[in-house]
């Protein structure tokens, strides 16, 4: 019963506060889930200093303290190594252009804490979680990122039933996973595939082939979004287009419920991706091909 949503601006417009669109979509789906919430918003070209941002939770007597470290390229490997050696640390986000914010509570709590409505960006994803298989803690909130490569985020509704098998396989390859949440496996799997061939559609096809169970997820990379449903189509997932107006540029929106598309006026070209066929939203060229 989790709720997922995403926005990608047409023409790579990065000056619009897409946080407010995500907020609206998440609030309209809040009835689906109330345990925790989170967003990942991308603003290409915003990181002028060329540093990496690592967000992590430090566990201490059942409490979670969030820490953000800005790390230059030359210190990156050493910092990641040190952080992964500490069993009390859960890395939440590894980014260059991505702003990933998550916590337990409702979306309005997240906004009160991080002012998500004012965050500008080219594209972003949001998630509302009701826990079914792992704990309700800030580190288990979505979106999930990975240290395999920066700027990968995933939001997910459903369950990857063969999570354990996929996780073991990734761990055998030497990848480190920080939580017991099945959604983290998607992020690491996709990142591994992108490292191998760099093709987001192929990466998602491979995941559909390997993953079992009912799921819909959205994966975000620095320049694209992919909306993916399992091969039986057991979980919902829709997308729609808002042609824009004087106050708001045009954009594509994705969500679990139709109400979320309504809430941001993305009521044109409404479709659901066929089961087992990833729908990729990349840049203006790709979006034009969808129009045609």
């Amino acid at each position, binding site marked *: 019963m989790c709720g997922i949503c995403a926005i990608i601006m047409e023409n790579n417009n990065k000056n619009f506060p897409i946080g407010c669109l995500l907020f609206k979509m998440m609030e309209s789906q809040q009835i689906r889930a109330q345990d925790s919430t989170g967003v990942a918003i991308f603003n290409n070209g915003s990181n002028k200093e060329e540093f990496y941002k690592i967000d992590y939770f430090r566990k201490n007597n059942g409490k979670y303290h969030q820490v953000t470290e800005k790390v230059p390229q030359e210190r990156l490997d050493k910092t990641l190594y040190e952080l992964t050696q500490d069993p009390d640390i859960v890395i939440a986000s590894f980014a260059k252009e991505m702003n990933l914010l998550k916590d337990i509570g409702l979306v309005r709590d997240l906004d009160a804490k991080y002012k998500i409505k004012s965050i500008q960006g080219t594209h972003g994803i949001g998630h509302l979680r009701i826990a079914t298989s792992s704990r309700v803690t800030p580190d288990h909130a979505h979106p999930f990122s990975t240290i395999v490569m920066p700027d990968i985020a995933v939001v997910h509704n459903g369950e990857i039933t063969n999570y354990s098998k996929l996780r073991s396989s990734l761990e*055998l390859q030497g990848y480190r996973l920080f939580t017991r949440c099945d959604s983290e496996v998607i992020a690491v799997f996709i990142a591994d595939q992108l490292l191998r061939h760099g093709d987001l559609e192929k990466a998602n096809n491979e995941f559909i082939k390997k993953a079992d169970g009912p799921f819909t997820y959205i994966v975000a990379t620095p320049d694209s979004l992919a909306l993916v449903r399992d091969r039986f189509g057991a979980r919902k997932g829709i997308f729609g287009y808002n042609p824009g107006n004087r106050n708001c540029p045009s954009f594509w929106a994705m969500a679990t419920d139709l109400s979320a598309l309504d809430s941001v006026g993305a009521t044109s070209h409404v479709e659901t991706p066929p089961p087992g066929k990833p729908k990729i939203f990349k840049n203006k060229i790709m979006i034009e091909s969808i129009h045609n």
Partner: protein
Amino acid sequence: MNDADKFIIRKAVLELAKTGTPRFTSIDDDVRNLPKVNSKTINLWDYVTAIGAQLSRPPYDPYRETISLDISIGRKKSRKVSLNIPLIIYGNIAIHPSSLEAVHLALNRLAEKGNVLGLISEIDINTTNNNNRKYPLFKKVSFYKNDSLEHYQKSCPEGLVLEYKDQDSLRMLQNFRKEFDGPILVDVSEVFPLYIKTILEEGADGIIVDTDKVTKKESYKGKHAIAVIYDARNAINDYYKGREENDNDNNAILIIAGDVNSAGKIVKAAALGANVVGYSTSMLIAHSNMYSEKPSDASSIAENVYRHMVGTKGEIKGIPAALGYSDFHNLSPSDLRTSSIDASLQGNIPLEGVDRTYKEMIEEIVNEYVREKGIKLNSLEIQQILRFMVRE
């Protein structure tokens, strides 16, 4: 740790202290009406259950949705053999040629209906229909005969099975690997758990472990088949750790034979890490005919074997579907729970109700104690205490 966890642990530790052996049964035995057992007669398979599908993880309907049992045997370099049912007829029983003929007819009939499973046989099939074999045959190489590969290729097998005994077996594997492009499976029961890494390095496509044989060895005295499967899977995983070639579709497979003779055990063995099961029940059905007052002909026996296999296929499709899987091979240890501390220790299976293994719970207690008392111990010393506590 909540009160219920503490209660179970306290009871278990007290019993361990009193008897010197881990508990075999759980506090809910009375509720589940399991027979009272003692450590010598217990069959741990009965104390291992699978977790069914839940709210967010709906079961599949095996009549409407495709539940895959398919598996292919063979690593990247060699020719692959595909099975539609993850079973190979193989057992530690003397095979009579007439029984083999009945099994051959049954396997042919199953294959005609799209249910391909394999056969491991040392003796040649004594039938006029041999040329029309429709299922994969894995020819067992008689180590002591020292025959050449050509000798074994006379019956055109799709694969070979070697029994690993010593360094000579390794040389034989190396020689056959150079010339034979089909899957080569190596039965390591006699040397288990040694040499698995070496055998995989030399290009074996699968490892066969007979749990009956292994549990008779001194090093596995008192242990159950689940311990053997767990150790075998870990040995193969250790080989693949950190390797680029690790890919589930092309990895060497684990074939478990011996004490896996029903659909329930097949599913549990698969969850513990078996890819294919060496199944001897069909052979026993065929074999038992020889001792009946009115022996039937091969065709009638084949009908019985056929029906048994169709029923078994239905069962091993239905259980993963009820667990929320569309593919049999997605089963994993996390799908199992046990009410037996011994089973938890031997197979690293989480205990019912607490969802953690017995070892994990004891480890938590040790760590808590060490922390509370301010005792300075390094991780090696903590592991030594833990091993002592769980009698490893």
